[in-house]
């Protein structure tokens, strides 16, 4: 028994070499460790571990879970943003290996895309689901509260795994989708692609379970009188989003698993020998990937519907057509995925069908944009920060959408595919659509969940920097795309004349960076000034039920579950209260789920499992897997108990407003 084999048994393929990185990567790793140490140290110093465990980590309250998603997403936005700054800096120098080696550059753009999509955008929308769906349907909770917690902790486990490469090992260099054969063992024997696979696999299962959870919640837990066509449009958008999640995340699960099998068990799904077909990976990953981008954008659409109606002081124009547009987009998003690989040789008939379907999907989207504008028309519009984000969205998303129609023409696509034109297009959609929608939603609903407003002035400045930064960052990329610049370039010949545009783009990203800094500043200032800026329950003269809860809401949301007769239920309630005095309220006992340690436990075990697979630590793989199965079996075969808030206590809590 020599030391080597003992080491390999305990640690798999992990060696001390895995901790050695080039200076910049090492610096990033050290920063990450310092941030962790500071965070843990702070909590320990303030003696808040018990508080955090009891009130946040084990909580089954969707409001708490939503806030945790939001915090993780915000931190990950910073990481993804720093990656973007580094990409721009390197590209602005036009010189190879200016300060980023090619390998490091590849890891950075792979991390940037992966983190932004999976750990920022997805996290933000799950935050929105958790915070907004139960109140908007007049419910106290989701259908499966424990599953909700497990979903969050699986997501958190994925987040840890995707950030671990800064410290130990390396990240994938194969882009945010890791196409084979590059992602196969032959060309990528290290840990990079494995980190990528397992971070996404674990977080992806969390997403799928959340999809099932919120879909069931909307179908089964609407309050009395709230028929489907009386739900807020945001809830409809969640219905569409969760339908997509449930339909396509299994495809991602399979595709990642098959790639993992190729890399660990020597199978031949996507290898370039023994009959493997790398294009099948591309086909499957985009069958998931295209609906995924609609999963990201539909909640933003839903949020805008609420925001535009409220700040136009008018009900949403064309509710029915909005619902049908959502349903149409949901269905159509399944039929377009080949447009991500027009150039891969499918032939004219296949390309044409998918091209036409892609163009068609612009139509219901256009219906929605027009309906929002018609809502504003003849309304008494207040241009608060959320409305500014909406205006920015309309312009940028429309332009981005038009470039999408350009890309959907197969012959033209042969010019644009994988050029910077494409990169500009999808950033246009995700930033202009998803991110602006998320920022609008944060500003709009912040007072509800914190009890104070965000500083409007700083918010406006942040918006201005974001919008101008965005235009400066991505307009040059459209031009560069036409000039022949391809994506993922770490250097190019300066004689091409591209450098000027890259530098302009870099300035744009700096402006965005200032915008982000202003947003952080806004939060800090707003927290410090919160006593001076309190928000009432009805912070914006809203129309939907969440505004009838206190700001911040009680744990049980509503003391008495509302009964609804119309759309914009809260608006109707307000009108009704003006006409006659409120009836005396009869309180009842409220039963809520007790906190549970199962969520964090499953998350922790999953993180161990993922890391163990990456580093080939067989015993840890087996132990964590068996532990997960045992924990789930014991818990699922047990009847759980609840906590009861007595009617008297409810009365007291309500009176303490």
């Amino acid at each position, binding site marked *: 028994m020599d030391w080597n084999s003992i080491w390999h048994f305990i640690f798999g393929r992990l060696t001390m070499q895995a901790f050695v990185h080039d200076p910049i990567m090492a610096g990033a790793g050290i920063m990450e460790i310092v941030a962790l140490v500071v965070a843990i140290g702070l909590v320990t110093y303030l003696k808040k571990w018990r508080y955090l465990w009891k009130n946040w980590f084990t909580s089954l309250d969707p409001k708490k879970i939503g806030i945790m998603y939001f915090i993780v997403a915000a931190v990950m936005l910073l990481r993804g943003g720093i990656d973007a700054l580094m990409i721009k800096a390197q590209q602005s120098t036009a010189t190879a290996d200016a300060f980023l080696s090619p390998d490091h550059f590849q890891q950075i753009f792979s991390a940037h895309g992966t983190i932004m999509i999976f750990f920022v955008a997805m996290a933000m929308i799950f935050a929105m689901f958790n915070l907004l769906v139960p109140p908007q349907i007049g419910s106290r909770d989701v*259908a499966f509260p424990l599953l909700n917690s497990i979903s969050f902790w699986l997501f958190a486990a994925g987040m840890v795994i995707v950030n671990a490469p800064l410290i130990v090992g390396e990240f994938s260099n194969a882009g945010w989708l890791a196409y084979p054969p590059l992602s196969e063992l032959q060309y990528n024997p290290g840990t990079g692609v494995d980190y990528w696979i397992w971070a996404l696999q674990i977080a992806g299962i969390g997403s799928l379970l959340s999809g099932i959870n919120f879909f069931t919640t909307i179908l089964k837990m609407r309050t009395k009188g709230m028929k489907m066509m009386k739900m807020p449009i945001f809830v409809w958008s969640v219905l569409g989003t969760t339908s997509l999640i*449930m339909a396509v995340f299994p495809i991602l699960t399979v595709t990642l698993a*098959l790639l993992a099998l190729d890399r660990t068990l020597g199978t031949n799904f996507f*290898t370039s020998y023994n*009959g493997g077909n790398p294009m099948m990976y591309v086909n499957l990953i985009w069958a998931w990937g295209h609906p995924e981008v609609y999963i990201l954008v539909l909640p933003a659409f839903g949020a805008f519907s609420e925001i535009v109606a409220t700040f136009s002081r008018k009900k949403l124009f064309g509710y029915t057509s909005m619902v049908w547009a959502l349903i149409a987009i949901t269905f159509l998003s399944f039929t377009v995925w080949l447009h991500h690989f027009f150039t891969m040789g499918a032939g004219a008939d296949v390309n044409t069908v998918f091209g036409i379907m892609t163009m068609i999907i612009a139509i219901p989207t256009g219906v929605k944009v027009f309906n929002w504008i018609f809502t504003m028309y003849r309304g008494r519009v207040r241009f608060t920060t959320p409305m500014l984000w909406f205006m920015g969205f309309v312009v940028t998303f429309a332009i981005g959408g038009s470039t999408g129609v350009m890309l959907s023409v197969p012959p033209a696509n042969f010019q644009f595919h994988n050029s910077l034109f494409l990169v500009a297009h999808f950033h246009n959609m995700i930033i202009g659509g998803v991110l602006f929608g998320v920022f609008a939603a944060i500003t709009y609903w912040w007072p509800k969940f914190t009890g104070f407003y965000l500083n409007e002035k700083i918010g406006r400045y942040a918006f201005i920097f974001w919008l101008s930064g965005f235009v400066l960052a991505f307009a040059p990329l459209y031009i560069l795309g036409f000039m022949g610049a391809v994506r993922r370039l770490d250097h190019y010949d300066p004689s091409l004349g591209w450098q000027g545009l890259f530098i302009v783009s870099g300035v744009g990203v700096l402006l965005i960076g200032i915008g982000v800094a202003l947003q952080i500043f806004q939060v800090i200032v707003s927290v410090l000034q919160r006593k001076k800026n309190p928000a009432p329950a009805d912070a914006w003269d809203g129309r939907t039920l969440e505004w009838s809860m206190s700001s911040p809401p009680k744990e049980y949301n509503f003391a008495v579950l509302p009964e609804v007769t119309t759309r914009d239920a809260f608006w109707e309630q307000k009108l009704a209260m003006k006409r006659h005095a409120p009836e005396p309220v009869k309180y009842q006992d409220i039963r809520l789920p007790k906190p549970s340690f199962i969520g964090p436990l499953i998350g922790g075990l999953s993180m161990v499992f993922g890391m163990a697979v990456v580093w080939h630590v067989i015993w840890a793989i087996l132990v964590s897997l068996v532990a997960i199965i045992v924990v789930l079996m014991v818990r699922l075969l047990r009847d759980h108990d609840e906590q009861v808030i007595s009617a008297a206590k409810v009365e007291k809590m309500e009176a303490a407003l």
Partner: protein
Amino acid sequence: MSETVMEMDIIRQERQEVANRKTLGFWIYLMTDVVLFSSLFATFAVLRNAVASGPSGQDLFSMPFVLGETLVLLTSTFTIGMAVVLAKRGFKIAALFNLLLTFGLGVAFLVMELTEFTEFVHEGASWQTSAFLSSFFALVATHGLHVAFGLLWMLGLGIKMIRRWGKETDLGRLALLGTFWHFLDIIWIFIFTFVYMIGVLG
């Protein structure tokens, strides 16, 4: 007095609503599982002729053996149906006996499948040999894994119900297990048809 009765009614109604949610939620999960299997089927369909230099389905599959597996699984889906129906009406011994039969048949199915796999590997047809075999093993073994999880569930639930018979929540769980098991047989119909039968026909 009447307040307590009303509260009991509310609690009963809430419990029924929770049970309905669980049934729908589990069904929806099964639908996602079916999409998962269909991705594996799609992969198999695309790669089924990529035999490289290895054997094809015609070379490997033994139809009588597969028919045996199929009938074993089909019988088990029948017995679990019986178990659910009998349990709901309180026939403890009959229900548990049927559950035991289901378990035994499920184990038999897995043993047969593992025997088939071992034989293939010994003949030089492993999941590493070709894309066809990789996709065969992925699809059929995923189904087998689902069967194994079902058996684990059956064991846990069965032991629980022996010790503590008649709880409404356990009956609900048994019904969900029954649905899960039925689905596994439905998936097997398509494996039987598209992998084995069409594979053998060439």
